[in-house]
Every structure is written in structure tokens, then in C-alpha cells.
């Protein structure tokens, strides 16, 4: 007899933030038809309203610890925290887009609808508690982003960006889903807690353990593409450069949130006991992630030095930052560190959200209507023409370097602390040294703005909405330094590993 579950078993209320976004996005698609062309800003505000609603609902879900949709989704602090980050990023992203897409002539309502769908994908990704859910959420996250990257069509750069992102994204998804199939083959289940339970019963060296090894490796490849980890990073600079800048900004944060959420759920929740050698305190995947992290840190930071376009520079910087978060993932592979490492990564994502969106906001302010004005040399003398913007940009650059007094500093030290706690001293050393390298190219922008000779760009893109976005990012970056408890306390009961022990 098949038990038909009743509606109340689904725990719909726990996925309400993400569900409301999906429903609202679908509704907005219809509503947008009735909004006249010259008043498309209304769509933006409607979309932002949906984000605010979801944010408020999400605020009530911080202390929940339950499952929804019969185990497909998990509602816990990890989910709620990441939802908040994604919603914040999307809200700031909308603020940055409103005037930008108008002045470059791509103001269409579908822009916001697609953005909302992608947000929903990220939120489902943060909640995913089943490999099927991970896959579907990942696609819901990615497909709108492919379109958004190419949204500036018929601009060839933007179209190329979209197609490249699409091909490599689909390629990565195929890896991910094949990996998921193999894990299913090894354990007989796609549910993450059930995988956790099954893994401890797998005999080391048996065929199931080989399936598991290959499967988790393939999933790591797929997720590595999404978060732009080396050696799966090659799409990043082209896609970042070609996509409309607010989309680049949103993507740099949102896609990371999704990718790392799944990485933590799968590696730290499902496979922590997956050990190839007996009596080891370290999960089998730790060394792999460790090497990925080190390669990502080194390559991302070194190649960023030679960039002349600020969007490309920020693309490599985003690769490098994926490396720092990967340090936390690697740390989570040591028994007992997983929860603290996940909390550090959460704080990092929050701090990165404010900082990186802020940096992109200033870049948008300088961008001309034809898409030029994104070279680093365009920043020369900005401190003379727009001292406020220049000061904020300098602050964001310090934060990306991980220099006090910014949120980036707190975030980095939390990550380094966990890496040391996990016993990965060489990785921590690579982390701090690459931070110094990153100081070079971030500082380069500060040098151009403050010490360079030149009249400075008038930064005509700095419309009121964009300035508000920048102020919000600045405030967030500063406040998270002064009162880091605001970012750490709401993650204090994140339990990825222990909550799932049967």
C-alpha cells in the first residue's frame, strides 16, 4: 500500500521564502505584460517587494530545524542564513540594475523575472537535502543566469558570455548529475541523511566504495565549475566581462552561495565518514579539496594581477575568493571542525556579498552606456572627481584584501582560524600569502584613484539608486567589522554534521 501523504506533511511553511519567490516570479511574468514600456521600473519595485517579503518570512525561520517536502528540503539555520545572503544580494542587484538597464537600453520586464527565478534556485539549493533537489535547484539557478548573461544581445560580447556560460554550465551539470547517479548506485538512496547512514556501512575497497569515490569526485567537478574553482574556472573571466555588470555582480555572489551550499551539504553532511583508510580523522575528500583550494588561491590571485579590465580583475578575484571558501570546505573534512568551518564560510559569504556587490556598484557607476569605461585605467583620479565613490571603492578593496577595519578581515580570520584548527597549516600559509598578493592588485585600483594624475571620471552612472546600493554595501562591510556578532550569532546553531547522526 502506498501511503498518500497529506498536504500538512510537506511542511510547506518552511520553504515559504523560496516558494513565494517562485510564485511571485511566475505572477510577475503575467503582470509585466500590463505594465507599459516606459514604466518598466514598476516591475523592478514589484520584484524587490517580493524579495523583501521573502526576507521577512525567512527571518522567522532562523530557529527552525526540520525537513520539508518529505525530506527533499531541509529548513535549518544554514538554509535561512544563505537565503538571507541571496535575498540581500538580489535586492542590491535590483537596485543596481534599475537605472543601468534603462540607460544601456535593455529594460525589459523579463530581466527581473529571470533574476527572481535564479534567486529561487539559489534558495532551493541552500535548502536541498536530496541529490535530486540539488540537481533541479542547480538548474533553476543556472538557466536564468545563462539568459541574463546574454541579455545585452545583440551585443556580441554579451551573447558570447551567455553561450560560453551555457555550454560549460551544462557540461558541469552533466558531471554533477552523473556523480549523483553513481552515489545513488553506491548507497541506494539520494537522500543526504540516508547517504550519511549508508556510507558507514560501505566496505573499504569494495565496488561500492569505488562508485562512491568516483561519484563524489564527479560531483565535486560539477560544483567546482559553479563556484569557479581552479581548474574549472576558465569560463569565469569571459562570462563576467560579457554579462551586464549587475548580473555579473549578482552571479558572483549568488552562484557561489548555491555551489558552496551544495558542497557543504554533500561533503560535510553526507560524506563526512567517507574514509578510505581506517582510523583517520580526515574525510577522504579532504586532500582533494585542499589541493583545489590551494590551486584556486594561487592561480586566481596571480592571474588577477595582470588584468586591465576591472570586470575581469573582479572575475579572477572571485575565483580567488572561491579559494578562501574552499579552505573552509577543506577544514570541514576534519572531524569536529565541520560546523565551525561551515559557520566561517557563511560569514565569509555574507561579508563577500556586501563587499563584492559594492565594488561592482562603483564599477557600474563608471561604465558608459556603450559598455566601455570598465578598464582599471578609467579609475585614474576618481578621488578628485568623486571622492565619496573613491573612498568607498578603496574601502571595498581593503575588504577584498582582508584588511581591517572591514568585514573582509573578520571573514578571512574566521576562515584561517578554522583551517588552523583543522590542522591544515600549509593551506593556511598559502591563504595568507596569497592575500598579500591580492593586496597588490586591489591596491592598484586605490593607487589609480588616489595617487594617479588625472581629472577623474565624472562617473555619470552613479544614479541615486546605484548610490543607495553602494551605501548599503559600505554600511554592511563596516558594520560587520564593528559588530561581527551580527553575522556570527545568527549562525551559532548551524549544525551540518551532528544534526544528521542517526
Amino acid at each position: 500500500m502506498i501511503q498518500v501523504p497529506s498536504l500538512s506533511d510537506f511542511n510547506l511553511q518552511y520553504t515559504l521564502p523560496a516558494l513565494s519567490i517562485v510564485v511571485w516570479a511566475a505572477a510577475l511574468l503575467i503582470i509585466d505584460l500590463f505594465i507599459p514600456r516606459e514604466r518598466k521600473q514598476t516591475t523592478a519595485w514589484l520584484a524587490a517587494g517580493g524579495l523583501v517579503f521573502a526576507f521577512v518570512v525567512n527571518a522567522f525561520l532562523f530557529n527552525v530545524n526540520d525537513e520539508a517536502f518529505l525530506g527533499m528540503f531541509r529548513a535549518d539555520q544554514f538554509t535561512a542564513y544563505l537565503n538571507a545572503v541571496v535575498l540581500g544580494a538580489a535586492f542590491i542587484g535590483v537596485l543596481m540594475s534599475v537605472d543601468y538597464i534603462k540607460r544601456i537600453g535593455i529594460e525589459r520586464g523579463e530581466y527581473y523575472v529571470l533574476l527572481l527565478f535564479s534567486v529561487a534556485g539559489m534558495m532551493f539549493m541552500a535548502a536541498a537535502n536530496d541529490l535530486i533537489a540539488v540537481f533541479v535547484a542547480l538548474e533553476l539557478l543556472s538557466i536564468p543566469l545563462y539568459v541574463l548573461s546574454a541579455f545585452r544581445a545583440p551585443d556580441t560580447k554579451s551573447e558570447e558570455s551567455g553561450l560560453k556560460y551555457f555550454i560549460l554550465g551544462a557540461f558541469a551539470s552533466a558531471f554533477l548529475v552523473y556523480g549523483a547517479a553513481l552515489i545513488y548506485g553506491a548507497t541506494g538512496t539520494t537522500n543526504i541523511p540516508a547517504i550519511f547512514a549508508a556510507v558507514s556501512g560501505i566496505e573499504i575497497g569494495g565496488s561500492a566504495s569505488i562508485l562512491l569515490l568516483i561519484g563524489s569526485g564527479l560531483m565535486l567537478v560539477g560544483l567546482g565549475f559553479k563556484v569557479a574553482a581552479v581548474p574549472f574556472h576558465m569560463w569565469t573571466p569571459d562570462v563576467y566581462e560579457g554579462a551586464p555588470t549587475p548580473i555579473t555582480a549578482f552571479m558572483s555572489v549568488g552562484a557561489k552561495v548555491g555551489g558552496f551550499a551544495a558542497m557543504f551539504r554533500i561533503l560535510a553532511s553526507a560524506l563526512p565518514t567517507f574514509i578510505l583508510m581506517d582510523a583517520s580523522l580526515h574525510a577522504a575528500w579532504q586532500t582533494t579539496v585542499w589541493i583545489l583550494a590551494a590551486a584556486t588561491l594561487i592561480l586566481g590571485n596571480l592571474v588577477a594581477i595582470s588584468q586591465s579590465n576591472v570586470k575581469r580583475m573582479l572575475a579572477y578575484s572571485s575565483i580567488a575568493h572561491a579559494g578562501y571558501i574552499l579552505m573552509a570546505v577543506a577544514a570541514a573534512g576534519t572531524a569536529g571542525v565541520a560546523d565551525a568551518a561551515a559557520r566561517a564560510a557563511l560569514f565569509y559569504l555574507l561579508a563577500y556579498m556586501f563587499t563584492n556587490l559594492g565594488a561592482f556598484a562603483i564599477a557600474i557607476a563608471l561604465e558608459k552606456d556603450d559598455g566601455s569605461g570598465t578598464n582599471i585605467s578609467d579609475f585614474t583620479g576618481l578621488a578628485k572627481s568623486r571622492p565619496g565613490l573613491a573612498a568607498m571603492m578603496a574601502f571595498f578593496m581593503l575588504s577584498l584584501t582582508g584588511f581591517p577595519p572591514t568585514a573582509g578581515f573578520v571573514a578571512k580570520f574566521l576562515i584561517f582560524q578554522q583551517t588552523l584548527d583543522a590542522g591544515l597549516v600549509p593551506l593556511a600559509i598559502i591563504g595568507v600569502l596569497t592575500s598579500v598578493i591580492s593586496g597588490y592588485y586591489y591596491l592598484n585600483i586605490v593607487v589609480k584613484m588616489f595617487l594617479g594624475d588625472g581629472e577623474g571620471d565624472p562617473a555619470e552612472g552613479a544614479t541615486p539608486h546605484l548610490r543607495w546600493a553602494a551605501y548599503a554595501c559600505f554600511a554592511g562591510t563596516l558594520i560587520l567589522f564593528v559588530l561581527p556578532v551580527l553575522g556570527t550569532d545568527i549562525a551559532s546553531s548551524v549544525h551540518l554534521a551532528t544534526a544528521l547522526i542517526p
Partner: protein
Amino acid sequence: MEATGLSLLTVILFLPLVGMTIILFIPGDQGRNIRYTALGFSVVTFALSLVMWASFDPNVAGLQMVQRWDWMPTFGISYYVGVDGISLLLIVLTAFIMPIAILVSMASHIFQERGREKWYYLFLMVLEWAMLGAFMIQDLIVFYIFFEITLVPMYFLIGIWGAENRVYAAVKFFLYTLAGSVLMLLAILYVGNQAGTFAIPEIVSMVHSGALTFPFDGLFSTQSYLFLGFFIAFAIKVPLWPFHSWLPDAHVQAPTAGSVILAGVLLKLGTYGMIRVLLPIFPEATVAWAPIVAVLAIIGIIYGAWVCYAQDDAKKLVAYSSVSHMGFIVLGIFALNGQGIQGSILQMVNHGVSTGGLFLIVGMLYERRHTKKLADYGGIWKALPVFGAISLVITLSSMGLPGLNGFIGEFTILLGTFGSEVLGFFFALFATLGIILAAVYMLYMFQKVFMGELDKEENKHLPDMNWMEYAALIPVLVGVFLIGLYPALFFAPMNTTVMELAAQVGHFVTTVAQAVP
């Protein structure tokens, strides 16, 4: 003792930040208001620092005027300020140097070509805040934060208002110091992870009660690596030979106020950190590494003095003399006895006053002649008699003439080195060589600039000193004579704290000597 209200230290610390905020809201074209706001706040800060000194109890070894607020309680990190015999004089020194730096900037012409006066004073205020914080904070993470924040305003001071090569010097200064300090961050995190707290006094008491041990087994063991993590950061800041190459660039390119602050206070962060962190937390590694560090210090003393001769740039000469003088201070610290450490702390103050004074003099000459080449001067004493006399006193003080401040510090350090169980006679001998060399190059500079014939036409009609320059130089003279003639006033507050520290470390001198032959 936990203070219930605001500790005086907190007031002093955040006064410059209040000043910064006020300056932020003054329109940029009101230069006068900006200047006097900055001056006012720095003078009040100095006055309050004297109040702090007056209410300081010299018979207490531990921290006074403590204030502690949680910052990140889950990780044991707090805003934790306190003052003891080690930091008292350095806080006063910082507050003393700042008004002088502001006065000399007010008399300067740099804003006529570079402008952005508002930002300049803004950065000076931030810098004062960060330096005071670094000396007051008793929590490793927050200490690191202040230690790092000092780089930002200094970077802009050099980069915007510096000389021709300013961008290169600013970036080099920033990245060099940053590179040194990131490893310190890792060491801090490791120590904190082990101790469960980042509060220095708690870590120290754990170390000395045996509750917390960092495994020590010779020059290359866990404790030594941690020691090195901190040491390299501090050594770059000092700068100790061979980590000094950023210093001449930074000094030569920096505006006068920047040089004064850099030499007067910022370099002391390194030596202060050594006393505050290395000696009490890693006593065994300190004892084991002391001779090696002392050798580096002596090389620095002699090398710095030697390179001075080759200089024809006055600012570069003073910069290298700093390398030499800071070597003395490091030597005194690693003598690991009361005299050495006391001498070092006093010498930090002396060096701040004297070398700060020398940079003032060079800066004032530069304002008049727009050159720093020694060869462009000569016979200046005849053109500017009062200025020449003041310069002579400051030069002699930097040389270590008895009766002036430099002598007291150097003499105490030499006594400490001579009586040290880890260093001893030969170290003292070579250090003395440094003193002799210092006398020679200082007199060489003085003679080149001030003595001789007034043979260059453009030197004959130099404008006389204005009141702001007097106001900047006279406090320096007061400091020179006060320390030189009445050193007991300065030794008194540090005595109890330093003696306890020396006793703590001295305990390990014998144990390590047995463990590591």
C-alpha cells in the same frame, strides 16, 4: 580592576576618531578650521595622556585603567584596553608627537601643490587613533587590527603628499609590512585556538602557570615557529637588518609629518610588540633565539651607521641612522634583563623625540630650499642662528651626548647587554662601536649643513622661523633636556612592570640553557 564607566584610556583612544568625524563634516575649502580642529584634538589628547600618567600607579606591575568589552565572545576576542609600565610612555610619546606633526604640516607648503588638505588631517587623526590603539589594546586580534590599520593612513600620507617616487614607496611600504604581518595573524590564531582566549594577560598567566604550553625543543620547534611568526612581523616594522629596505624609501618619499610619525612612533610598534608578546608568551624560544636576534641587531647598528656616510641626501641619512638606533633598542630587549628592557623603552622615547626632531629639521630646511642634498647647504647656522642652535642640540642628543636624552638610553642598554646572561661582553663591545660611528656621521651631517662658509647665494636669505615651527621644535627641546637631566621621572613608572617581566623571562634563561646546549 574593572572600571564601571568609561576608562580614561577609552576616552583618549577615541578622541582622535571624534576629531576625524568632525573634520569629515567640515567643507574642504575651510583649511583653517580643519587645521585647528586637528591641532586642538591632538593637544587635548596629549593633555589627557599626561593626566593618565599622573593617575598611573607606578607600584603596580599589572594593567591599570582597564576596560573590557566583548567583541566576538564566542572566540574570546574583546576590546580590552589597559596601560602598564611598558605602554605608558609610548602612549604619551604618541600623543606628544602628533601635535608636533600637525604643527609642522601647518607650516608646510605641500598643500599648495597637492591640495586635499582635509584628507591629510583626516588621515593624521586616523593614524593617531590606530597608533594609540596598538599601544593600549591587550587582545592579540584587536592588537593586530590596530597594528594593520596604521598602514592605511600612512600609505595615503606617503602616496598623496610624498616626493617624486611616492607611489612606489607607498606601495612598497604597504605590501612589505603586510607580508610580514600576515604570518603573525596565523601565529595569533594558533595561540588563540590553544588558549581559548586572545587576551594577552590571560595567555601570559596561563603560560607562566603551566596551564598552556607551546612545545619547545630548540630553535626549530612549535614554539619557535610561533615566535618567528610574530618576530618577522615586528622585525619588519622596527626595521631590523635585513628587513629594513622599505624604510629609506618610505622616509625619503614621505612628507615631513609622515617621517616624524614614522620614525617617532610607528617603528616603535615593532619593538613594543616584542616586549609585549614575544618575551612573556614565548619565553623559551625568546631565550633560544636571543643571541641570533642580537647579532642581527648589531649588524643593523653598524650597517646603519656605515651606510650613513655614503648618503648625500639628508633624509636618507636620518633614515639609516634610524636603522642603527632601532638596532640598539632590539639589542636591549633581547638582553632579557631589567636594565636592558628599561633602557630599550626609554630609548624608544628618546629615538622618537630625537629622530623625530631631526626629521623636523630636515623638513624645515626642505621647506626653505626645496632640496635634501647635503651639498646644497653649508653655513646655515649663520643664516638662521636660532635654528642652528636648536639643530645642534637635537643632533647631539641623537649622538648620545651625556646630559641629553640619548645618552641615558644607550648607556642603560649597554649596561644591560654587558650584564646579560644570554649576550654579554662582546655584544656590548660591538654596540659601543655603533655609538662611536653615530657620533661621526651625525657630526658629519651637522658640519655639512650648518658649519662652514655661507658660500651659496640662495642660502643667504632664508626666511626666519615662524611661530608654528617654534611651537613644533620647542617641545622637542624640552623632551631632550627633561629626559637627559631627570631620567628617574621616566624610569619610575616602568620599573615595577619591567622587573616582573624580567624575572619571568629570567627564570627561563637557566632552564633553556640546560635544555639547549
